[in-house]
């Protein structure tokens, strides 16, 4: 039990650039991100077709309206999310995770993209709610109120940015992490584990920066879709595809100046 299967990068030409950038010593996090996206062709941007990814974003997009309805728990139940009458942050994030898992388990097909999306959604939601609900004397309705407050263009934009930053980071590390630790020690780029982890953090920051591009329009999209009463999974899938395309283009720019 407890076995871990650790993959590594193929030694094909297009991945060799990534390996060279990581191992050669001068490739910044931004350059490595850009090269990785080139190596995986269009599969990153095609993530908008993934059932798990779309479901995760759709749930995040519909949460605020559920909180604004007369009965939060009932509205969430309609989305497949089971919580108590006055749920805590832990309960909401756990229930979101469960909802996506159950959705995928019922023949929608598991995928690595879906797994990464689920984790990113839980993390983004947890972060955005935790910041808002940190209180010495929490009240039963605090979480519902704060979820409702995510329902503005600005706030949804921030949530979307956080989600896409984390999802993109996971997507890049899905490949890059196969090479980074191999470069620690000996002739490798990183002399110590700490140096390798600094690089990982730089990659994380780069994704957060790049995700600003999504924040710029996500709120507008969400508001328009709500206004047109069309916050469906189909429409969400198109939004996800577009957002990933913008992230990819932004990351391909490399480091900013």
């Amino acid at each position: 039990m407890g076995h871990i299967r650790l993959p590594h990068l193929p030694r094909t030409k297009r991945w060799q650039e990534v390996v060279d950038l990581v191992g050669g010593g001068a490739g910044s996090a931004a350059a490595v991100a850009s090269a990785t996206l080139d190596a995986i062709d269009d599969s990153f941007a095609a993530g908008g077709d993934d059932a798990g990814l779309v479901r995760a974003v759709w749930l995040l997009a519909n949460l605020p309206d559920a909180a604004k309805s007369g009965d939060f728990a009932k509205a969430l139940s309609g989305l497949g999310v089971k919580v108590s009458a006055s749920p805590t942050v832990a309960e909401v994030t756990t229930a979101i995770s469960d909802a996506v898992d159950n959705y995928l388990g019922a023949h929608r097909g598991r995928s690595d993209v879906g797994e990464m999306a689920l984790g990113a959604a839980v993390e983004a939601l947890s972060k955005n709610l935790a910041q808002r609900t940190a209180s010495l004397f929490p009240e039963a309705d605090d979480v519902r109120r704060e979820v409702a407050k995510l329902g503005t263009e600005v706030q949804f934009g921030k949530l979307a940015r956080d989600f896409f930053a984390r999802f993109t980071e996971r997507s890049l590390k899905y490949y890059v992490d196969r090479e980074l630790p191999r470069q620690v020690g000996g002739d490798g780029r990183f002399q110590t584990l700490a140096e390798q982890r600094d690089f990982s953090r730089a990659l994380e920051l780069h994704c957060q920066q790049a995700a600003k591009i999504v924040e710029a329009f996500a709120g507008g999209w969400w508001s328009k879709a709500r206004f047109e009463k069309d916050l469906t999974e189909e429409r969400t899938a198109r939004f996800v595809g577009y957002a990933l395309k913008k992230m990819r283009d932004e990351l391909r720019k490399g480091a900013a100046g």
Partner: protein
Amino acid sequence: MTAPPTETWVLCGGATHARAPADALRLSVGDTSDSMTVGIAGVSQALTGQLSTRFTDLVRIATFVLGADGAIDRGRLDDADGGKKWHRAFRLVIGVEDPSFWSQPDVTTALEETLSFLSQDTFAFEFQTLASQRGHKKKVGEQLVFSTPGGKPFLPWDHIEDISLFSGGLDSFAGAAELIFGQKRGTILVSHRSATKMWATQAGLVEDLRALAPKHGARPPEHVAVEVTRHNDILRTERTQRTRSFLYAAIAGAVANLVSRNRICMYENGIIGINLPIAGSVVGARATRTAHPRVLGGFAKILTHVAGAKFTVENPFALKTRAEVIQGLSSSPALHLAKQTMSCAHIHQRSQMHPHCGVCSQCIDRQFGFLGADMAEHESFEGYELKLATDEWKDDGARSLLLNWIGTADDFVSCKNGEQFIEKFGDAARAIPNIMDAFGLDADGSRRAVFELHKRHGDTVARVLEAIHARSAKDIREGKLKPTTLPMLLYREGLRKQRVENKAGQAGAENQFRAVDGSWHLRFRSGQAFELPDAKGLHYLGLLLAHPGEARTTAALRALSEGRDPAGCHVLDADGKKAVRERVAALRKERDEAEEFCDQATVTRCQAEIDALTPLLKAKGADGLADEKMARAMEKNLREAISSITKASKPFGDHLKEYVQIGSVCWYRGPGIAWDIALPAVASDPAATRSEATDGVALVIDLPNQRVTFRGHEIPTTPPNNLQPQALLALAALAQRPGEAVTMADVATGIWKLGGLAKKPTSPDQRDLKYKLTTPFTKALPNGEAKKLIQAVRGSGLRLNLRAEEVQLVLRDSGGVEKR
């Protein structure tokens, strides 16, 4: 939406299906003439008849699932297909004795969801009545072989209170010891009899426990061994076997049912049970989920359906670290047996001298566990082929695993509370619901418990590493340790070894295109920098990269490269117009898509580029027509330059091939990459240099060349932060009457005449126009020089606050305008 992977049809136990393809996998379980045999030793044949139909079916189903799991390849470790091969889809049609029960939606859903999470495959089940097995010697109910080791009857089972899975590993051993000696419970241990080596360990440990028990007032445990044999090679295609634990749980459940118990135990420390990914590349079930709380909950749900009463699958160690499990053995009479347990994932390659490889995740966790529990004397560290603290971790894969493992433990420590923990490890949320059920906690309590478990584990790892460091500090300082030993991988204080020069080793911008002393210094995406001799094509490329998005005719490009004014060089031939039209069409499509998603920044960018390109299609005149010979020569120069670059750096060359348009009109559709560009002095690109104000002139507006300078500062007329074409004309209109308030109607007239437009535009909105005029100036002169350059005069319009002698307005002689 992406469709799930192609389904593999699996027809089991003689089942048939009209839609099944001819090459469907067919499985049967029984004797050696079948695909698989499941042998269960240790239970009396006399009990066979008491095994319920549903439990018999359950074991049958679990066996077929394992068979299918082994038949379909999951790909290689170096696959970069996004996991396409890893995720499979199965449609199992299974002959069972009670199909109406198994076909109930709740039951089928419990099976499908649990197995889907366990193995990350998609499962669909259909059940049929078990067909009569013609030609088989055994009856259906006897296909699951129950026998005692020596044919002896099983002992009475009234004393049995617990059924526990027993792998022979450390955690299951500690659990068994706790049940037998700690709680004095009558126990059946259920083992998978796989490799001979492992079986020897399991059987040996059970024998030792049985011998020890009476000496300590405990009941000797019973032992049931499950052996699954595949008689068809195709079932050995895939070795990961993530669904194996479902079969063990099914058999343990069947055994429990035989002795009228509704509970089984599966002992695994919480860190391994939840098994959070230690690296971004470890997604989903690449980290096994055998004892994941969600899986145990799923097994419990299935067993509850089958038993017809509440059935639990428990892991009492779910909130303990490995070190804590080991510490729990400290007062056990069985402690001395702990070193005989076997945790290694690579059991088949082990020897008696080295029963543990030392490099798999279980071995790493085990070494840290004993050291962290301060019970190293109870472990045989010499039995590890690679020892954690002292040996060299030369193998890249092994070193990666170790460092990822340590790094993740460190990340646990960095979290201050449950919220931060879930913000960093969202996957942990999946364990929370079942931890809530198992330990009677609410969601917050469960989250806190899971966080604290991981924090304690991280603290233990940190403590062990500090101790290793303390012991190694002197050797590190004296340079005695090899670079890939653990102390050196973590710490490099004192006398550092000479750092290996990195192969690229250049400072400077990531993307360079610099003319230096007659040659070109180039670099792309912080790869290896290289030098190329001077060539015209590189010159042209440099000019294009310096102005991304600006389309230039070949004549204009050549003029710029020679330091000449490109005015009059903007007329396109047919090919050029075609290229521009295609680009404009692509931009319109991009703009319209951006509109759908309210991406205003992209809409604005696209529109600006459309506005810049469209006039090229309208430009007329014979004197600027591209010289075809010159155009072909320039094309050749550019392609040769790109070819030279590709030879030195394929990624660079590929980038240029994708983003540089070559033809009678050329441009670089840069994706926003920042370039460090230095062109040769002769390429005095007017837009790249600051022009000097002459004789008191502050503002120069050069309409034919679309240039504006203010007090020597270039005001951009191309993105970003630029004066848009209409705004430029409006500025020129104001410049015709400096110091005067000009109404918007007059501005519209000015735009019309100066722009040579076919129709007079509507009067612009004053406020909007002021914004569009002043923003480029304030961006270019952030020191506030241009703050009051353009002023709104209430009721009168906008005023350019300059004297006439301070303004220079350049128009064509005809008074018309030539736009870029």
